[in-house]
């Protein structure tokens, strides 16, 4: 077992013995389930109305009516719950002094950071894949285009991974888990607000920079079913930057 795999295994074990993952997972799945139910109910209402109005069989675009709003709401929920998944990653090690064990072992900071990131990504991907039941169930009753849905899941995965890497960094800054959670929540909301701010500047250079920095534009494009290299680059580079920042935070902790 390589050291990074060892870290992943250890982190996964810690995740699943603590109630946090179960509580967060339950809340996430319950809220997503409720929202999807509402979206479907809403869509069928509209379909009924259309049928009465036009007296014909209405073919609704389910991607637009159900999945796009659902993905958008999921994104909002992720902003709240993902900081709770990442908060303990480093903060707990610092608090329990186990960080000293890791840092005095023949294992690199990169391996620690990547191991921890991958472990929480696995947990998140597991949760996300459970919501796949929603389109699978719907597919039994309706027909729709699968491509935008798969891209939507890719968008949620990337979006979540970016948030997790932000949380990873925040957790490396403090030994207090609550502070880590709020810090990553603040950073994520900050990135989100940048997107809203960018519309105020319109198509100026500043406006474009702000809208590139925020995840909103990239996420919207992906869930609309558009796969753009630029958006993938955004997510990957954002994560890389956060890993680097986390690495720096750990070094600063040792050197201080």
């Amino acid at each position, binding site marked *: 077992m390589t050291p990074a795999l060892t870290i992943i295994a250890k982190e996964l074990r810690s995740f699943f013995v603590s109630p946090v993952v179960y509580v967060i997972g339950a809340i996430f799945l319950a809220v997503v389930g409720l929202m999807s139910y509402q979206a479907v109910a809403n869509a069928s209402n509209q379909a009924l109305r259309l049928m009465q109005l036009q007296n014909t069989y209405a073919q609704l675009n389910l991607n637009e009516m159900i999945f796009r709003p659902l993905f958008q709401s999921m994104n909002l929920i992720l902003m709240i719950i993902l900081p709770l998944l990442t908060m303990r990653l480093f903060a707990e090690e610092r608090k329990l002094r186990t960080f*000293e*064990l890791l840092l005095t072992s023949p294992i690199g900071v990169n391996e620690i950071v990547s191991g921890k990131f991958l472990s929480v990504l696995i947990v998140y991907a597991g949760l996300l894949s459970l919501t796949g039941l929603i389109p699978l169930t719907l597919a039994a009753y309706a027909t729709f285009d699968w491509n935008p849905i798969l891209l939507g899941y890719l968008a949620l995965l990337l979006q979540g991974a970016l948030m997790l890497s932000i949380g990873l960094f925040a957790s490396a800054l403090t030994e207090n888990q609550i502070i880590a959670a709020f810090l990553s929540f603040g950073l994520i909301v900050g990135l989100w607000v940048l997107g809203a701010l960018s519309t105020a500047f319109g198509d100026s250079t500043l406006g474009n920079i702000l809208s590139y920095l925020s995840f909103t534009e990239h996420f919207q494009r992906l869930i609309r079913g558009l796969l753009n290299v630029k958006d993938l680059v955004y997510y990957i580079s954002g994560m890389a930057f956060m890993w680097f920042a986390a690495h720096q935070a750990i070094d600063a902790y040792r050197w201080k």
Partner: protein
Amino acid sequence: MIDVQHVTKRYGKVTALNDISFSIAKGEIVAFLGPNGAGKTTTMRILTGFMPPTSGTVSIAGFDCLEEPWEVKKHIGYLPETPPLYLEFTVREYLTFVGRIKRLGPKQLQERMEITINQTGLTEVQGRVIGNLSRGYRQRVGLAQALLHNPPVLILDEPTTGLDPNQIIEIRDLIKNLAGSHTIILSTHLLAEATAICQKVIIIHQGQIVAIDTPEQLGAKFRQSTMLQLTVKQSDPDLLDALGKIPGVMHVSHGPTPNTYAIETKIGKDVREELTQLVVARGAGLLELTTQTVSLEDVFKAFTTSDKPVMKPQENTVASTSQ
């Protein structure tokens, strides 16, 4: 085995360690002694490669801590002040994790695991969750973690703090048994511990090394004179001068009260008989005469309180009479 040259460590403007140099031979057990905040933990963290020194060089088993941190880490077992335990793991699971990050192969890990669990007396609790163990057991798990990859150098930061007397003795015996095959540095603020298990003592105070020697030598070095404390009943203004005239007495001063006298005499010269005769002859009323032996405690105090050596009375009561 361990060579520290001119190491200085600053935290911002605070100098935690100031130009420390020492070396430790293979198989030695050495104690770092110093009051809290003297720089013991900082020194240990630098030795383990946890943090780099501001200046100076450290080498362990021939590897430089800055240039080959990887090799150094493989050669060191480190028990921090708080044992680094994952409380939700069982002892075996925890040790398996440690073995893997210490890069032991699966076979080696199995072998070392059995040996270490036996060595540290964890056989009965190996399947239990660490969070449910007592402090003594947790400390042993911490020690097992340091020993697992069989490192030639062990660095133990206050290994007996917070344990009850029986547990302290157990851990000390364990450490003593490791001597010879391992080079051990441990830090403590308990002098008895240093005397009990270490061949060499390094006293650190305010980031500087104030003494390096064996416990016995440290005591002897300090004992260049014998201190006597005399208490009389009547105040006698001339007694001070009279005492000073006794051959062998180097210095006399008043003790905590005007009727007590601190008398410093040459080593090997017993003046107690003359002293009592003098006091009795003057009718001052001899109440008490005690010699104060120098313990390691006094040496420690002397080195670590920046002003004059402080003597503790009530050590060996030699004569105690009352009139």
